[in-house]
């Protein structure tokens, strides 16, 4: 590597709770599978991190179809955390990811605090997992998920239990379906979270006029895509003012400009979700776009723009 490349790359590096990332762009859980689904389109080595599909202790069947519906500027989903389970992930999916020089963040889910801690323990012992993202915000499951994330005490309890089982940085992924998201963020920060990521999807629904039935079998689902970006941006800004730990911005990011807005609002890194579906190379284009923005505006380091909103 020539020195100018090295310098260029140093300008893009960020650190999240001790985890060093090449750049601030990660994939959002549930939108990038286990990495292999997009490996034909994207050089995974170039990503800041890969956040894998939410993992539970046992494999989960997920919700019956139909699971998705397109809406204005986005989509609803009610997948219900279908996943292979933590053991199969470690055995069959992780070896693939270990071939790459990229941070792997395992998103974890449990129906009880005990289950969260058990999944955390297993992943902490596995080679090739660099951080955990605790999903206390899935709107599409009956037990766990959002019920932990909408109560500051329950969110803190899950955070403590996971922290007790792992040496890895712990990111807590927050739901927007609450009155005061900053209060939840503060609560998990006190409980030891190393970072927070937000937002997960907003609950919504859509109806078929011909049949007068919901488009989703689950009736309600989680809204994602550019439609939710302004809400996400507002929440990231609010949370970033209230916590000292890094904030990871998520919600409707399609372009480098979108990502930069989140960073100016206070996000130290971003996750790209639904954009992957319409453009498999979205992450790479966003990374390139951020790099160009820094060069064009003579900004030496990406960290220099984090939380620089002028009000």
């Amino acid at each position, binding site marked *: 590597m020539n020195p100018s490349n090295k310098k260029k790359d140093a300008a893009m590096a960020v650190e999240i709770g001790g985890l060093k990332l090449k750049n601030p762009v990660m994939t959002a859980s*549930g939108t990038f*599978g286990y990495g292999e689904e997009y490996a034909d*389109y994207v050089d995974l080595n170039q990503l800041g991190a890969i956040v894998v599909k939410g993992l539970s202790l046992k494999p989960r*069947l997920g919700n019956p179809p139909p699971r*998705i519906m*397109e809406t204005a500027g986005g989509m609803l989903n009610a*997948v219900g955390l*279908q996943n292979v389970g933590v053991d199969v992930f470690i055995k069959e999916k992780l070896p693939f990811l270990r071939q790459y020089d990229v941070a792997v963040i395992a998103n974890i889910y449990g129906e009880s605090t005990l289950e969260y801690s058990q999944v955390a323990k297993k992943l902490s012992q596995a080679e090739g997992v660099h951080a955990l993202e605790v999903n206390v915000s899935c709107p599409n499951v009956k037990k766990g998920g959002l019920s932990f994330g909408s109560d500051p005490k329950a969110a803190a309890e899950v955070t403590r239990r996971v922290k007790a089982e792992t040496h890895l940085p712990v990111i807590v992924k927050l739901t927007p379906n609450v009155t005061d998201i900053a209060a939840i963020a503060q609560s998990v920060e006190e409980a030891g979270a190393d970072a927070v990521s937000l937002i997960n999807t907003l609950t919504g629904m859509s109806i078929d006029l011909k049949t007068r039935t919901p488009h989703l079998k689950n009736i309600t689902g989680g809204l994602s895509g550019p439609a939710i970006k302004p809400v996400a941006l507002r929440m990231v800004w609010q949370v970033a003012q209230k916590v000292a730990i890094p904030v990871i911005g998520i919600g409707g990011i399609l372009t480098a400009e979108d990502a930069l807005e989140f960073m100016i609002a206070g996000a130290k890194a971003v996750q790209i979700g639904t954009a992957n579906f319409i453009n498999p190379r979205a992450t790479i284009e966003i990374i390139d776009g951020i790099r160009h923005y820094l060069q064009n505006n003579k900004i030496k380091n990406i960290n220099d723009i984090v939380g620089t909103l002028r009000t």
Partner: protein
Amino acid sequence: MAKDIYMGEVAANEEIQIDYFLMKVTLPLSFSEPLPGQFVMIRIAGLHDPFLSRPISIYSYTRGKSNCAIELLYRVVGKGTQILAGLIKGSQVEISGPLGGSYSIDHQKKNIVFIAGGIGIAPLSLLAEALCRKDCYSAAAMTFYLGAQTADAVVGLNRLRKLCYNITVCTDDGSLGQKSLVTKAFQKDIKKYSPSDTVIYACGPKAMVQSLSKILDGKYFCQVSLEERMACGVGACVGCVVAVKDGQGKLAYKRVCADGPVFDLQQIIWE
């Protein structure tokens, strides 16, 4: 990295019957030759409404010196297909693919039976073409049952006639061919086809496939291509699932895009 998103150019986009369109898209030669049953995700370059790409199965493929071309046969059913229908020659479209798995064609069976409902003719036509190209024996062994609601909804018949000698056309109202459901027309002939000597390929509306499943009763080897709403098309979003029996006979949700779109009919679990 092996796959890419291709910028395609609309070479033609004609309404061949009311609400049915045939679009020809030219693509770079790096777009691989599709297998019968595979599909593409298509979107209008730079447009974010409709937000998602649309999955459409590949109807034909031709390769020239400087580019290749695919044809997509589609029916206007919603916002996405309506906008596709409005594209004029020269429009730019983003295509990713070919995606998904294909029909398996290495069966040396005496009878090759196709059962298509409406637009379901598209992947089966590509399959029939592939079989014809493979050997002339296949061409003689093929029988095609094509059904639609009315004569206006029968598409692709002329092209099919060049590939297959035995075609039974059915419409719900009798406006073309037999007045019958396509599955009923096949059922009348079923004695001609012994399960051990027959392979059946199907594609069509859910009701047709479900009724076929009852008629075949697990006795025939039958592959069916399914359709579902999709977001990513590559297996990541897990949105387009269908209920199937897994290896142990238990319920599992498989992705139509990545695990299908072609499934063994016997695997599918009906509600």
